C-alpha cells in the first residue's frame, strides 16, 4: 500500500469543500440535496480511511450504517421535491415564497 492516511483526508476535505460550496451557492433543490450527499460521503470516506489505519473496525461499520441512513434520507427528500415540483412546476427553492416575515 502506497497510499498514506493524508491522501484520503485531502480527498475528503475537498469533497467537504465542494459540498459546502454547493449548498451555499446553488438554489436548485436537487443540487442542494446532492451537495449534502457529498458531505456525507466525505465523512464516510474519512471513517473508512481511519478504520483502515486504526486497530478496530468501528469506523467501517459506522460507514455502512451511515450509507443506509443517507439512502433513506434521500428517498424522503426526493419525495418532498417531487410534491413541490407538482405544485410549482419548478424545483428552485428561491421561488418558494409563501412563507416569510
Amino acid at each position: 500500500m502506497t497510499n498514506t492516511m493524508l491522501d484520503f483526508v485531502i480527498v475528503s476535505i475537498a469533497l467537504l469543500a465542494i459540498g459546502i460550496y454547493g449548498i451555499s451557492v446553488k438554489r436548485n433543490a436537487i443540487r442542494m440535496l446532492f451537495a449534502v450527499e457529498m458531505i456525507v460521503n466525505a465523512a464516510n470516506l474519512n471513517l473508512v480511511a481511519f478504520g483502515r489505519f486504526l486497530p478496530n473496525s468501528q469506523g467501517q461499520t459506522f460507514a455502512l450504517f451511515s450509507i443506509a441512513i443517507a439512502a433513506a434520507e434521500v428517498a424522503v427528500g426526493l419525495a418532498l421535491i417531487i410534491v413541490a415540483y407538482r405544485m410549482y412546476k419548478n424545483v428552485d427553492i428561491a421561488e418558494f415564497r409563501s412563507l416569510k416575515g
Partner: protein
Amino acid sequence: MIEITSTPIILIAILGTVGMILPVMSVVRKEKGSNSFYAAIAFGALIASIGYVAYEVVSGQLPPAAVFSADVLANDSFSGLFAIAMLIVAIITTAGSFNFMRGQAHPPVYYSLILLSTIGMVLVAYSTDLVMLFVAWELMSIPTYVLAGFMKKNPSSNEAALKYFLFGALSSAIIIYGISIVYGLTGSTNIGEVMTGLANLDPSMMPLALLAVGMFIAGFGFKMGLVPFHMWLPDTYEGAPPTITALLAAGTKKAGFAAALRVIIMGTIALQLDWTFALGVIAVMTMTVGNIAAIMQKNISRMLAYSSIGHAGYILIGLAVAPFTSLGIQGSLFHVLNHSVMKGAAFIAIAGIVTTIGITNIDKLKGLGRKMPITSLGLVISLLALAGVPPTAGFWSKLLLFGSALETGLPAWAGWLAIAGVLNSALSLAYYGWIIRKMYFEGETEKKIKEPKAIIGVMIFSIIFLVGIGVYPDPIIEFTKNAVPILDNALIISK
C-alpha cells in the same frame, strides 16, 4: 451487552411494534377516515411507555446520572428525565391530533410516523455511543420531514417541509463529519472513551478537536435553533401543521439538547473550556435575536417560533456555565422539561384555534377569551409560563438558570448571561402580553364556540402541570438534581 429487559429496549418494543402495525391495520381494515381509532391506539402505546418510565423513576430504580457507559445505551436519571419530557410531548401531540386530523388523509401513517419519531427522540437521550446517537438522531429526524409536509395539497406545508429537510440533512451531514474526525483522533466511538482520548490529545492535534466540537455545535445547533443556524425554523414552524409544530418545537428541539449535553459539554470540559465562551456568545445572540424578531410578527405560530429560538438561548446559558457549576445543567434540564409542556400546549391551543376558527393572525384573535374560554386559558397559562411569571413552572426554571450564571461568577462574563436573560424575559413579556390583551380585552362579546374535547383535555393537563409545579416545585427540582451527569471532579474547575 444491553439487557433485553432494559427500559430503552422495552420502549422500542412497545412503540416500534405499534408504530409498524398501524399502517398494516389500515390496509387490512380497508376503512377510511376512522382517525380516532388509530389515535386511540397510538395514545395507548404512549401512555404505556410513559407509565413504565415514570414507574422506574418514582420507585427509585434508576441510578443517578452517569455520563459515560461502556454500553451503547445507558439507563440513568438523565435519560429518564428526557424520556419523560419527550413522551409527554408525543402524548400531547397525539391527543391534539384527535380533532386536528379528523377528515384528513392517511391518519394511520401519521400516527405511525409520530411513534417512530418518538422512539428516535427517546433513544437520543439514552445513547452513550456516537454511532447509536447518530442512528437515533436520524430515526427522529426522517419521520418529522414527512410529517412537516403531511398536508400534501397545502403549498406552505410543502415549502416548510422542503426547507426543514434541506437544513436537517445538512445538519446530519455535519454531525457525521464531526464524528468521523473524533473517531480518527481517538480511535473509538464510545462517548466516554472519546472524551478521555480528547483530554489526553497531542497538542498539535488540538485544532482538529476544536473543529470537531465546532461541527457538533453547528450540527446539533440546527435542530436546537441556535442563532446563526436558525433561518429554517420560523418558516417550518409556521408552515407545518400546528400539531407537528408542537412535536418539532417541544420534542426534536429537546432531543438536540439531550445530544448536546452528552456530547458538547463533555467535549468542552475535555478540551479545557475553549468553547464555553463561544457557547455564552451564542446564548446571548440566540435569545436576543429570537425575542426581538418575535415582537414584529403578525402570525401567532411564527411569533411562538421566534420565542422558541429565544428559549433555546436561555437553555444554552446552563450549558455555557456547566463546567463551573452543576446548577447550570440542573437549570437546563428543568427548563427543558417545562418548555416541552408549555410550547407543546401553546401549539396545541393554536391547532385548536385553527380547526375551529381557522385563523392564526394575531389581530383576528380579538375576543377569543370569550369564544373559546378553556383553550384561551390554556394558551394564556403557557404564555405566562414562557415569560416566567411567578406562579408558573417557567419562573422556577428561569430562576435556576439565571441564578446558576450569577452564582459561579468564575468566568468574568457569566454575570452578563444572567443580565441578558432577565432583560430578554422582560422583553418577551411585551409580545406575550399583546396576545393576551387581544384575546381578553378587545372585541365584542360573541357567542361561545364548541371547543374540541381532546384539546380541552390537553389544556387542562398543561394548566395543572404548569401551575402545580409553579406552586410546589420541590420534587421536580430534586429529580433534576439527580439527573445532572456526574462529571469527573478533576475536570470541574472549582472556585
